[in-house]
């Protein structure tokens, strides 16, 4: 009888030790756990793409807005009436410095996105980037801008909401270039004629009229196709006239003051 009493504590002790020291990992066990880890790795990538990139991008875009408040004041040319190329915009697409803001009321009353040059990693910060082939506002031809659909601020997420006739306002140091949407369509990534000087008439070789083209990816979350918007210049509003009513709420105060 006495021996059972002495064995119990031993068994209990052994069970406690087993709990602290797990069995050595087996090949199958390690493989399984690595597969689960790989799944989490992919899941986290989605979190990064849809959430993390937007955080940093919106911060950077805000820094661009602040920077433009200063450069706009220095670049403003009193008396510019929109006839001829806008002197505040770089003649050649070179650096990543922002030179404009795009307002699209259809995308929301507060929608304002900095515009800068370049379509590489320059656009990885809630901005729109100007294609190298693009002229300045005020010049005949096709000013094309690229923007992300679902990452980095997702600036063109709502492009499918745009309707013919919707206005877009491109602000520079000198005023607002007002464009009216003429066409929203989906093309293959290789259909570069959307960047042609007269985008809705690919046979035209000479620039005719002033166009604004936006490109983004489509369908969302893929790189299969591109969604394209073409808009045509209808008006120029000098800075001194104040912001057009439709975007009055979206224009940051510091970009309002005339130099």
């Amino acid at each position, binding site marked *: 009888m006495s021996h059972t009493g002495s064995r119990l504590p031993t068994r209990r002790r052994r069970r406690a030790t087993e709990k602290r020291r797990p069995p050595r990992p087996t090949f199958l066990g390690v493989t399984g756990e690595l597969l689960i880890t790989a799944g989490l790795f992919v899941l*986290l990538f989605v979190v990064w793409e849809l959430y993390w990139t937007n955080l940093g991008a919106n911060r950077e875009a805000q820094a661009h807005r602040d920077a433009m408040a200063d450069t706009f004041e220095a670049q403003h040319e009193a008396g510019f009436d929109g006839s001829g190329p806008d002197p505040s915009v770089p003649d050649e697409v070179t650096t990543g410095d922002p030179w404009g803001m795009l307002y699209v009321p259809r995308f929301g009353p507060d929608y304002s996105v900095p515009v800068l040059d370049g379509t590489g990693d320059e656009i990885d910060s809630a901005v729109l980037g100007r294609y190298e082939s693009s002229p300045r506002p005020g010049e005949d031809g096709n000013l094309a801008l690229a923007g992300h*659909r679902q990452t980095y601020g997702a600036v063109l997420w709502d492009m499918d909401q745009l309707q013919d006739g919707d206005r877009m306002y491109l602000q520079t140091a000198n005023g607002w270039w007002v464009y009216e949407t003429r066409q929203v369509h989906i093309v293959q990534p290789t259909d570069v004629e959307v960047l042609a000087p007269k985008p809705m008439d690919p046979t035209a070789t000479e620039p005719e009229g002033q166009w604004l083209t936006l490109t983004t990816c489509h369908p969302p979350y893929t790189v299969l196709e591109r969604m394209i918007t073409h808009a045509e210049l209808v008006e120029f509003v000098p800075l001194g006239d104040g912001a057009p009513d439709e975007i009055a709420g979206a224009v940051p105060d510091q970009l309002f003051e005339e130099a």
Partner: protein
Amino acid sequence: MYAWLFHLLPGPTWFRWILTLVGLAAVVFVLMEYVYPWVAEFGFFSDATMDVD
């Protein structure tokens, strides 16, 4: 494997949990800041530009 690694950590259980959480946070941060931006450069998921050369 993870149970085994957890067992290898020093200190009492509550300390091991803290180590684990700190380690996980570090891994997630490195993924978010360095690994995923690098992966994204291959452009599987997001490309807003036309294929101009």
